[in-house]
């Protein structure tokens, strides 16, 4: 259970103050899949980074299991919006990084890493360095690295934005599979309404500057969700409706 209460964040930038988040109020239940959607610059990444414990909020409260967040930790792994693979590590070393931190045995690491490499379709590049990878491949490394530590809360900032539709749908399906197996909390930032609808239990819609909650949408779709859902009329309707709310 994570509770966010009256959370605000103000940046004192060179060009004046920017209110990135204002009075954000919501909570996420254990095992829930929540998406955060909003236009560019509305504060999605800022919110995620506060939840991750990487930024301090200006006011308000944020509690995980009743306790205020004091900093980052592997219980809340993050897939960052920008490129965050370690360029000095090979693909497999990147993926094993968090597992090494957790002092997992070499065999366990290797096994998990192989699984993930297959999942991410990077088997052939296990020993390559990130600079030899395409943008989408690097993103997949980031995703694998976060998956590997099996966090209590997985924070993902537009993880599939750089992926083509085939890879992306495969990754979405995988994410749902992993999530439904382990039932950990996922907070998922995306600018893609359909993606949010397909994946989440709830969508939190942010309005831009100052970033406020415009609406919270509970999704009525049953799980497991399949390709059929994407093509259903219901889905299509809701999408158009949300699209209108966004502006």
């Amino acid at each position, binding site marked *: 259970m994570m509770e966010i209460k009256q959370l605000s964040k103000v940046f004192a930038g060179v060009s004046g103050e920017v209110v990135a988040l204002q009075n954000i109020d919501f909570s996420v239940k254990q095992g829930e899949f929540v998406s955060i959607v909003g236009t560019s610059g509305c504060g999605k990444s800022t919110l995620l980074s506060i939840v991750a414990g990487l930024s301090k909020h200006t006011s308000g409260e944020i509690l995980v299991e009743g306790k205020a967040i004091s900093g980052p930790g592997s219980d809340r792994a993050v897939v*960052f919006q920008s490129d965050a693979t370690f360029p000095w590590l090979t693909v497999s070393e990147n993926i094993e990084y968090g597992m090494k931190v957790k002092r997992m045995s070499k065999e366990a690491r290797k096994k998990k890493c192989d699984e993930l490499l297959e999942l991410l379709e990077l088997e052939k590049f296990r020993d390559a*360095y990130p600079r030899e990878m395409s943008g989408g491949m690097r993103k997949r490394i980031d995703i694998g*690295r*976060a998956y590997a530590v099996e966090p209590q809360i997985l924070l993902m900032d537009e993880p599939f934005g750089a992926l083509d539709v085939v890879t992306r749908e495969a990754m979405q399906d995988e994410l749902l599979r992993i999530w439904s197996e382990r039932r950990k909390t996922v907070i998922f930032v995306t600018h893609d309404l359909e993606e949010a609808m397909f994946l989440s239990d709830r969508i939190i819609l942010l309005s831009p500057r100052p970033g406020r909650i415009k609406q919270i949408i509970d999704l009525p779709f049953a799980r497991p969700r399949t390709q059929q859902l994407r093509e259903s009329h219901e889905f299509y309707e809701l999408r158009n409706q949300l699209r209108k709310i966004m502006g």
Partner: protein
Amino acid sequence: MKIKLLSYVSILILIAVWLVLTLGGIVESLFLPGPKQLYEVISTSYADLAKHMGYTLMRQFTGFFIGSALGIIVGLMIASNRYIQALLDPIIEILRPVPPLAVIPMLILWLGIGPVPQILLVIFGCFVILVVSTVEAVKNVPKIYVNAARTLGAQWFYIYRTVILPAIVPSLVGAIRVAAAASFGLVVAAEFMGAQEGIGYYMIIAQRYLRTDMILISIILISAIAWLVDQAIRKIEKRMTQWSERHQ
């Protein structure tokens, strides 16, 4: 390959100018010794020179390695913790600009002659170069890497070892090359402190008698060895920064 040729050209020009100036009798050999003088020095004292060079290199290498390693370690410590920084930074800032030549008599007074104060001087010189460079390099590490490691549960020591350290390697190459070159200057200065042997000692004697031929030989020797050291650093660096875009 044409480019390689060009780099020989510039050295050849240098040598040609030297030959013209000296063999052409344009400058006196006292001002700029010619090949004949150098050959004489070498042929009479190559064994001596080799011996002196051996001692010097021993001190230089020891000092350079210890000083650089220490500089990087302390630099990482300072960069890692604001309290450590507050404690160490002022002291290092005070010691950093102290002219090595100025402390030589003091060092002899405190530590006597012998290799210890001499190596200390080299250590100190390399240390201050690397401590500052490391602190600055750490500041330039993109925050996202540190953040990524933190969210994967890494603690600060682990982050320093696995993120900061590899990330600063490319930025430290310059400092290490500067320190390597400086260590030769420092070891010569250090050998002014009552060394009984070493190229610095050899040079002082040469200065005493204004034997510019001996001085020039020493300079050439040091340059040549420093060049080899620099090439080695570049090789190692190339291997260590394979992951970066530096060499493309």
